């Protein structure tokens, strides 16, 4: 007992303040698109190295909804076309918000009436639907003392009846389609759906398999996609807070 009290005092506060510093190198965060990607053959070099068809060499875009952040495109082009920065803040929003290099979209936030209804509280039911468990682990890490999601009034709940929305991981396996829909159905309206990770956006590395639905968007109306494979807990924090209009730099306490 005394030992645990001593340890507690010794450890002090470990929670990261927001906005937080970037994760250390060689972390692969927000990809920066170089000028070379926009003209010439570099985009084709990058596309040839991509295992998930995230790069469209014709339109010269990078779809973060498909990207698994493996870094192979950067290696192939020597960083000239695409270079991964250490910034964990990734574009989140509707599916088209995740495509880099095309049209620019303003940051998506929830509708004002929904935000005023939620106030400073958001309760989510998590459903894991056919992924590898990586995104689930990072969603779970939001609850640990380092990221401490609860300080923002956001929490995960066991019952969909207690939830304001759904947080879904995975490409939606055919075997989880019914359970996912039933969970969604059990949440009172208005409800939001957040889909995290490349699988949930597009099927990710599993896209085209016989056993999956290639993303949550094919099953449910998704309000917010957060890319990553898996997204870093900071990416999740920035993504969810941004959607609630509580962007870092402003007053995060809402």
């Amino acid at each position, binding site marked *: 007992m005394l030992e645990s009290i001593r340890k507690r005092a010794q450890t002090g506060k470990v929670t990261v303040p927001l906005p937080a510093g970037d994760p250390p190198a*060689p972390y692969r965060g927000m990809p920066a698109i170089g000028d070379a990607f926009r003209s010439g053959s570099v985009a084709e070099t990058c596309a040839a190295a991509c295992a998930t068809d995230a790069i469209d060499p014709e339109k010269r875009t990078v779809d973060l909804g498909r990207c698994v952040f493996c870094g192979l495109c950067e290696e192939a082009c020597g960083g000239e076309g695409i270079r991964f920065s250490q910034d964990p803040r990734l574009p989140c929003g509707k599916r088209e918000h995740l495509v880099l290099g095309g049209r620019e979209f303003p940051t998506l936030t929830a509708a004002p009436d929904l935000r005023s209804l939620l106030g400073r509280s958001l309760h989510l039911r998590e459903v894991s639907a056919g992924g590898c*468990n990586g995104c689930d682990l990072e969603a779970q890490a939001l609850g640990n003392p380092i990221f401490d999601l609860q300080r923002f009034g956001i929490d995960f709940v066991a019952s969909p009846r207690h939830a304001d929305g759904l947080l879904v991981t995975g490409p939606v396996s*055919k075997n989880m389609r019914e359970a996912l829909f039933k969970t969604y159905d059990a949440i009172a309206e208005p409800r939001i759906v957040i889909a995290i990770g490349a699988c949930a956006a597009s099927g990710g590395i*599993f896209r085209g398999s016989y056993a999956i639905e290639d993303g949550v968007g094919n099953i449910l109306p998704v309000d917010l996609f957060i890319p990553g494979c898996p997204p870093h807990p900071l990416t999740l924090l920035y993504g969810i807070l941004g959607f609630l209009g509580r962007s870092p730099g402003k007053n995060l306490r809402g």
Partner: protein
Amino acid sequence: MRCVHTFDLGQSAPLAEEAFRAFLRETSTGGDRLLALFAEEPSSGRFLLHALAGGAAPGRFVHACVEASPRSFRTFTDVCPGTHWFEREIYDLFGLVPEGHPELNPLRFHEGWPKKYFPLRSGGAPAPDARRGYRFLLVRGEGIHEVAVGPVHAGIIEPGHFRFSCAGETIQNLEIRLGYQHKGIESLFPGYPGMGKILLSESISGDTAVGHSTACARLLEEIVGKPADPSAERWRAAALEIERISNHCGDLGGLSTDIGYLFGAAHFGRLRGAALNLLLKIAGNRFGRGLNRIGGIGPRVPGIAPGDLVAELERLRVEVESVGTTLLDAPSVVARMEGTGRLLPHTAKTLQFVGPAARASGRDVDARRDFPSPSYGDSSPAKVLLDGGDVMARARVRFMETRSSFEWLSGILAGAPGTGTAAERVNAPVAGRRLVVSVEEGWRGEIVHAAVVDGEGRITRYKVVDPSFRNWPGLSFAVQKNVISDFPLCNKSFNLSYSGADL
């Protein structure tokens, strides 16, 4: 290399059924242990069953195969109970019925799938009708009631269904129905070796990205004939041990949560994160994704100097030691974990369980010693073996294994080169039809990857065995005669992957 092996399928004719049966029987009586049993359709309408075993001596692999009719084969569970789930899997993927199987419920497919759909079977021979519904074992008796849990569970975890048959609070039987995470991953591997396969392997089980991608990379390297050099292998082993430390810390935190010991939950949650951040500093991702390339490691790996990593590991070790000792010495913790969820050594041996769960029940198996990769050739982390078989033993094994890993890491990182060797692109040499196998000890137990490769160096069948697939039935045995409220604790003490089992 003693962790990979190639069998020339041109040289190994299929055995007679009785000889194949004898091969499997031997794996359950000691010596070589079963690594995998899987089906293959080498030409349209013709089916082979492959069995892989080994481990009687370091680096020893043995293989046998047998022809199966397009409809069925006689079950091997009577001579080798460890084939139980493998046979159900063969039934699901190929439509070959294991005649006489004690519990032929589908593993992968649920109601709603077409009756004739077998994803890895060509249309070359008519397929039998598959049963897609699930028959739960019915327990009868006065006051017996059933409790159904899942597939969506209370926490942030993967889906699976648990059906308890209880008398009062006491669990008489637990039936585990999986398949919810089935994503058809084995169907995505065939083709020429390429980086896409390594990315796939990183997503077999998200918490074992290093273990699976290392096994996969070595298998692909064996196919193309270009092994990684010792410096790259050293970083693979270092990442593998840090992955083990991070997950064992996570599990000790999870066990603390499940008994309401918040001190352990908070600290181990934090320490797990610290270990994951070391993987990020090595490979650029918290789960070690990006570590492996075919023929070596990524060009930006390691992102941290060996000396700095040793210093960070030492800081982490001191903390894990102090929190772990406080946790496992606390009388309230011991009282709660001792005697709970006992998995008997006899059961662990008969069903050939693997990893820390087996080592907590007296089963001395460890792929780092039995199929040593280059870095484990001279020394592997100190052996941990207990025989209590309860939650306490599984917690202790985890804690003691983190100690062994820390100690071993400080040795292997001393004098490690600051960079590994980045991979080059290579093409597969032409050779005969062959079976390549690769084994590595992931944090949950031994990971087996096997590939059938055709004459042009193309993968035609890829088999993944995650340790969870081997150990799930162990949970059913461990919870028998425990109260249902102890189930979460028992479950966490195994902490098996749904994705790794469902593939």
